[in-house]
């Protein structure tokens, strides 16, 4: 599922948060977005599955198409878009009324899909294994998801997102609440997943971007209160060795400053 973004600007009411982004995200690859806080990485990511529009007053200008189809086109159902384009959020948000088991199956359960018990069990197990959480929770699958620690909760959310097998997976700093072991597991998982899925990840950890991504986009702010914009979008290798833009280099080297 390739994603084409053309001349896209994003607004919160009158406030233009992101300006004029054009990029082409390759299918079955990992694309990372980096940039300083407040530059609109999350905002941009959310437009890729039309999650942006649940915020009142927010809207998008420009064209975003997935696999050649304009996802903001007139006949497009945002729900269908989101089913194809899954998402993991910055802050873990398991459903408080559900057990761990049900949380993993939430995508199916909330849509009232009938699944056989055995099939459900296997979906839960493989998703939890994928999120490197299986061993910790296998004995308390029926306990509430909110009872886990922060890191455990985030891994549960990742399991929940991959359990519905989207074709694109958006991740907004998915590891920011994870310890290194879980982080490494997720990174491994991302490597595995990319053979089937297109993955877009926002991260503030440049090493992570360097480790997991094929392409990297660097967003920046000209000044506070100005909209964020895409400074450079290039293969990760090139980005981290000889970036086109001096700002990119400054930012990346600033990491180690």
């Amino acid at each position, binding site marked *: 599922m390739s994603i084409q973004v053309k001349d896209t600007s994003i607004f919160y009411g009158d406030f233009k948060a992101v300006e004029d982004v054009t990029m082409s995200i390759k299918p079955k690859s990992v694309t990372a977005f980096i940039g300083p806080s407040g530059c609109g990485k999350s905002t941009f990511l959310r437009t890729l599955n039309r*999650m942006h529009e649940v915020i009142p007053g927010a809207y998008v200008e420009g064209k975003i198409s997935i696999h050649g189809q304009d996802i903001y086109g007139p006949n497009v159902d945002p729900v269908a878009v989101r089913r194809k384009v899954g998402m993991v959020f910055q802050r873990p948000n398991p459903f408080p*009324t559900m057990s761990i088991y049900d949380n993993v199956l939430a*995508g199916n359960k*909330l*849509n009232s899909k009938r699944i056989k018990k055995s099939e459900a069990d296997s979906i839960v197990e493989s998703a939890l294994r994928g999120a490197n959480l299986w061993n910790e929770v296998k004995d308390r699958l029926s306990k509430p998801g909110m009872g886990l620690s922060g890191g455990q909760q985030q891994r549960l*959310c990742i399991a929940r997102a991959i359990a*519905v097998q*989207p074709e694109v997976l958006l991740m907004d700093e998915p590891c920011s609440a994870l310890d290194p072991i879980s982080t490494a597991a997720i990174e491994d998982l991302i490597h595995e997943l990319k053979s089937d899925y297109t993955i877009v990840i926002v991260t503030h950890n440049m090493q992570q971007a360097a480790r997991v991504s094929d392409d990297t986009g660097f967003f920046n702010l000209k000044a506070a209160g100005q909209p964020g914009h895409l400074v450079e979008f290039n293969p990760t290798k090139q980005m981290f060795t000889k970036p086109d833009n001096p700002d990119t280099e400054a930012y990346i080297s600033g990491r180690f400053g």
Partner: protein
Amino acid sequence: MSNTDLSNEETKLSHATLPRGAQWLVGVAAVALGGLALVLGMGIVGAAVIGLLGFLIGYPLWALLVENRRSATDKLVTGLVWTAFAVAVIPLIWLVYTVVSRGAATLSPEFLTYSMRSVTGDEQGGLYHALMGTLIVTGIAAVISIPIGIMTAIYLIEYGKGNRLAKTITFLVDVMTGIPSIVAGLFAFALFTLLVGPGTRFGFGGGVALSLLMIPTVVRSTEEMLKLVPDDLREAAYALGVPKWRTITKMVLPTAIGGIVTGVVLSISRVIGETAPLLVASGFNPNLNTSPFEDSPMMTVPVFIYTQLSEATAKGVEYAWGGALVLFILVMVLNLIARIVGTIFAPKTGR
């Protein structure tokens, strides 16, 4: 030690504190003060007030002298909160006690299974007909109000956020809470006078009148509960490709269900004891009548209580307290059910 300008005194964690059980000491002193006031002839209420004031002022004052101003404020508020609770609980307990003790004497199998049909003088009667009527009338009100109320709240929170219609409706709902109950009754009465015929007093009319009073309560409490469901949960569901209506029915409502059920029960409680509108809209009948749509008055427990009271006889007063107790028990059972439902569906935080 730091080189900031904090004095050594401030750095100490264990500043001088009141001795352990200080509140008890002050309490004893306050009781003694009250006792003194009593001896000086202030009367029991005056003495209690003096004692209470003594505690409310003495405890924070001591804290102010020994500890500091913030701690004193905290203790003052704590004292006020406890006192407010204690003072407010007095009439509540008093009322409950009166209802239970005076009602219990009347409660008997006959009282619960007899109607007032052909009952005169000292003959045994009961409120079976009124109990049935209350269940039916309140049931009708609930059947009308709960779906309308909850769906309206859903519209306001999930769909209407900030638009003109939603603002208007929120406002109208507030206005609706201000409909005097007797006016609701007059409205239903006049409505069915037009639709059915003059002087129509029947169960359904009472249900309509009550639903007018119940809907705003349901809307408001449901609204508050829906507001408390964090947006990131909704986003999590949307991100799983769940349509909005399923997100609402399967995630938002279950998350809020505990509070919603409590709100609904509270709203039933609020109308189940309404007298004036029922007097006007569903009327008075000593006989059992279980058909709410038939043009014939239907007795309800509050109206039963009222008519028994207006008899101004010893028996009437007795029956009135009996009716009050029955209503009380009814609501208690309702609350219990709500509580159980609430805990079953409440978010399992596990923390």
